[in-house]
């Protein structure tokens, strides 16, 4: 297999998604298309040759011309503060990818054609799931899909307006929010960490042969995967990806 080569992407746009999260929209000359759910490695090089690498999920669907990476600024991070604080439109970023052939969903893949999708996100772990949701919308898939999305505060919900728009135009897509730390007045979503009762109320029944993807901090992903098993989901149909402060 050919090596994944490092390439330069030019920053076309930077979107402030939440106070600590930005999306970078990159123009890449030699991008071969990816699957929703895959990630890239970003490599930064200092003038003295020192390098640092981290992985970031791709938030854009394969159909988009440009690549979107959604980056959460980590206080003790080395790469993420550069990407969120230093990087400007017109700068270049070195990266390679796409990487990862397991935590992916392809609307045209016939293997799981009749499976509804359960997507469970914690914080910026929503990024690869958003690539799936966008891919699903663009490819006009009506696959019944539920996104259960846990954030700490309303202000920290990434892609909130876009998700609202997508739901308004698509009866087969449900987005359920839970805000774990503080809820605005008149909040109709959940207001606690994801637990068994919440999954029992929102997740597809195991008889519907759902396909589940969970991405977020380790504690959330472990909890969700264990609870889904308890609810009767097949182990091989629960795919997990973990994001955490150690993502750097």
């Amino acid at each position: 297999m050919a090596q994944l080569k490092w390439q330069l992407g030019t920053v076309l746009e930077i979107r402030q998604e939440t106070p600590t999260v930005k999306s970078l929209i990159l123009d890449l000359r030699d991008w071969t298309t990816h699957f929703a759910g895959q990630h890239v490695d970003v490599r930064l090089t200092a003038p003295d040759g020192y390098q640092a690498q981290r992985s970031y999920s791709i938030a854009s669907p394969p159909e988009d011309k440009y690549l979107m990476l959604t980056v959460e600024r980590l206080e003790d991070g080395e790469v993420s503060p550069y990407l969120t604080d230093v990087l400007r439109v017109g700068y270049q970023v070195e990266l390679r990818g796409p990487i990862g052939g397991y935590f992916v969903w392809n609307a045209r893949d016939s293997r799981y054609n009749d499976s509804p999708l359960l997507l469970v996100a914690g914080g910026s772990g929503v990024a690869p799931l958003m690539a799936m949701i966008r891919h699903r919308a663009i490819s006009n898939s009506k696959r019944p899909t539920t996104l259960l999305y846990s954030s700490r505060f309303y202000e920290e919900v990434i892609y909130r307006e876009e998700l609202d728009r997508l739901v308004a135009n698509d009866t087969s897509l449900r987005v359920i929010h839970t805000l774990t730390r503080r809820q605005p007045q008149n909040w109709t979503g959940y207001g606690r960490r994801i637990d068994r009762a919440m999954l029992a109320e929102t997740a597809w029944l195991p008889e519907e042969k759902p396909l589940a993807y969970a991405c977020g901090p380790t504690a959330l992903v472990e909890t969700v995967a264990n609870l889904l098993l308890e609810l009767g989901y097949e182990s091989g149909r629960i795919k997990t990806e973990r994001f955490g402060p150690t993502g750097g």
Partner: protein
Amino acid sequence: MAEQFISRGFKGRRRGTNSELKGRIPPGQYATEEFPVLSAGPTPRTLLERWDFSIYGEIAEDLKWTWGEFLKLPRETATVDIHCVTKWSKLGTVWSGVSVDTLLEGINLDAQPDVGYLIAFCDGGYTTNLPLADVRGGKAWIAYEFDGKPLAPEHGGPARLLVPHLYFWKSAKWVRGFKLVKEDRPGFWETAGYHNYGDPWKEQRYAGD
């Protein structure tokens, strides 16, 4: 790229002066004090009463140990640096378990030099492939303790393979045995775009590296 690209405005963390430490971190890796968890699916739970470790395949007689038998095998403690392909390295981790040499002791591998590989198989369906040479000669263990405590399920407990000189996905969690084979056959991540061998010092992260 012919010319080295410099990331505009990137300085990086203050570089430590500890060159001994620096020499222990492979290219593209960073040291962490934490112990991140990475797995592709739910954490399997196997009752110890039902746990066993088996070796089969190209072998005259299959081998099998129950949990009780396994704990009675000679125990070794290894202090090693581990390197995850997702870029973190953790230095000086302390593991206890059974050396793979001990498990292979009863097999005359030198008499059948064409059996050069193994496939580690695990609860949950995970597999990974390794050359036999990489698990012999004091290079690999089946570890059941981390830091003096029973290995936690999310880190691969009750027991995981430990092959610290390769990227950590080769150190299969929830390992239940080896299949010895003549021909190499890529495992779970090896068929999903990751490198077949995975030497962190050569930065063999992905197929083609």
